């Protein structure tokens, strides 16, 4: 299994490298380190969200409310910054993470206590959170001149030649790697997604694990909300509309099994970078940006087909439980 995963991530690195090389033949400046750093910076927010989404997917759930959560938190902190310009930035960032975590915890509670299927919960909260962003702002925009310079410039501060946004993404990647591979909670997410029954017998509270995964995903979405609003210097209700699909796409491309329990941090990051490279390359090679939606659609479908094959070939059934799993897979 591990070999397969290693192989898979190497494959993705290869594909991304080939793509970059291919685009470079059409646009000479594409493969320069400066441009690649730009692409990474552009993809940072997607990477952060994909890691939250991945944690949720690992537990056999899905969080479709991340983009709406991002829009609400982004709007909330932008309005707070505009109304109280004296508020310290650190407090705003903590607030963003906190609000996001609360919204995520609401999802988690509905999934944990009421056992409502995650897809239904988050489809519902998706509209509710975005609606709340509208109620909060009354449909008005918060523009760059209303926000304080400190609030806007933070993700752009250069540190060792890269903007702080990129560094934050790198920091979150490392943090999530530690959380998922070196903590009890991390192992519990894999266990409760890979084999819920066995996880329960092993003493893992799968409901609580899901709750924590949703809260984590919400907190990261909240952080991404602040980063998004300050990076694009505008907050409005439709910010990041449909972005939840990009996060799911990044996970699926990165080899995270939608059935839960399989996937790695490196996979999610590479999946996000894959989408980031395509997004940045389309205008460069003269394809309309409108094509991006269809391309990510095709990529999602292909990735799902590919994942399903890889999982089947790996032969996860060690003892045949009356063949039920195999037939209904």
């Amino acid at each position: 299994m591990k070999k397969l995963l290693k192989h898979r991530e190497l494959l993705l690195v290869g594909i991304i490298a080939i793509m970059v090389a291919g685009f470079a033949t059409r646009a000479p400046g594409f493969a320069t380190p400066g441009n690649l750093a730009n692409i990474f910076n552009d993809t940072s927010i997607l990477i952060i969200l994909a890691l939250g989404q991945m944690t949720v997917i690992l537990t056999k759930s899905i969080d479709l409310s991340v983009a709406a959560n991002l829009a609400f938190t982004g709007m909330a902190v932008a309005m707070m910054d505009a109304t109280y310009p004296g508020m310290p930035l650190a407090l705003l960032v903590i607030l963003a993470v906190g609000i996001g975590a609360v919204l995520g915890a609401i999802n988690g509670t509905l999934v944990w206590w009421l056992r409502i299927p995650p897809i239904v919960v988050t489809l519902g909260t998706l509209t509710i959170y975005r609606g709340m962003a509208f109620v909060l702002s009354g449909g008005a925009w918060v523009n760059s001149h209303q926000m304080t310079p400190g609030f806007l410039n933070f993700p752009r501060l250069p540190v060792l030649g890269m903007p702080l946004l990129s560094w934050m993404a790198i920091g979150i990647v490392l943090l999530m790697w530690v959380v998922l591979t070196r903590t009890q909670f991390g192992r519990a997410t894999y266990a409760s997604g890979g084999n819920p029954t066995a996880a329960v017998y092993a003493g893992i509270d799968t409901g609580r694990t899901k709750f924590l995964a949703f809260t984590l995903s919400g907190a990261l979405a909240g952080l991404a909300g602040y980063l998004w609003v300050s990076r694009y210097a505008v907050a409005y209700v439709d910010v990041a509309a449909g972005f939840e699909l990009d996060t799911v796409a990044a996970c699926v491309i990165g080899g995270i099994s939608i059935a839960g329990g399989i996937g790695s941090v490196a996979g999610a990051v590479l999946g996000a970078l894959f989408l980031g490279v395509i997004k940045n390359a389309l205008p460069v090679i003269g394809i309309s940006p409108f094509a991006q939606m269809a391309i990510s659609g095709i990529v999602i479908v292909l990735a799902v087909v590919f994942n399903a094959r890889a999982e089947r070939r790996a032969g996860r059934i060690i003892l045949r439980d009356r063949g039920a799993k195999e037939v209904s897979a």
Partner: protein
Amino acid sequence: MSDIVTETRTRSAIPDRLGTPVSRLLGSWEVLLFGVAIAIFIANSFASPYFLNAWNLSDATFNFTEKAMIAFAMAMLIIVGEIDLSVAAIIALASTAMGAAAQMGIGTPGLVAIGLAVGLVCGAINGTLVSVLKLPSIVVTIGTMSLFRGISYITLGDKAYGKYPADFAYFGQGYVVWVFSFEFVLFIALAVIFGIILHATNFGRQVYVIGNNEFAARFSGIPVERVKFKLFLLTGLMSGIAAVCLTSRLGSTRPSIAQGWELEVVTMVVLGGVSILGGAGTIAGVVIAAFVMGLVTFGLGLLNVPGIVMSIFVGLLLIITIALPIVVRRIKFMSTK
């Protein structure tokens, strides 16, 4: 779908005695929902003096007829244990195809044929991915959702198609008799047809069996994959029909047409008492749920509530209607213990 849901249905929920037919009927979800619909109706007529008017009520039906047509097929799909999140994107693609054909001067019969054909093709793609390649429908249809709508975006970009033939307007704007619009009559006719398919044919029974126990269904000789494929095809077709009605009603096509409808359709189905875990639900429930949602949104519209705030209500409605029976069951379970 089945991959996401981990909870198994409780066997202990089956009672020893069923009670009298009358008490069973009164306790059913459909009757409860019908009461809610009447309550909302009365509340609306008090809230706005413009509500109780035959033409006004006829206008209100346009709020839900197109979504309800898809909801019938979606109900069967959810009962069988799958889901299709690409329905709104199919509407967008079918509408775009019809728009492109209308620019080339194709007449109304041709446009309708194109709309339905696109729906069928999209349904067949979803069906193939789910039943032949055996992929989880929820991810597949999230993928095809952005694929189908993405193709509309590639075709249209930020432009729009207008210029539909004059007689094409009948499907969305015409009236059969008095205040009964073509869409409303079609909605009733489809409700009857789907009611018969689901509740009075072998195919309908097979849908329930697969939804309750796919493994047993396979051993009973039910062609599980074929049934699922047919249902995806049917859902695609209904999306095509809805696309014809909606395009005809609006008279123009943008790639963002019917955005977010998949959520409202699923909400309608679940509100109608169809179990999101599969295996249970009726068409009658979906019909009443369609009226409830139509009345709620129309009533809020009369009270000047903006669309995005209405969507908060739709989202809350979805979560509460699913949570309520679970909470009630849990309280009952605790009190019997």
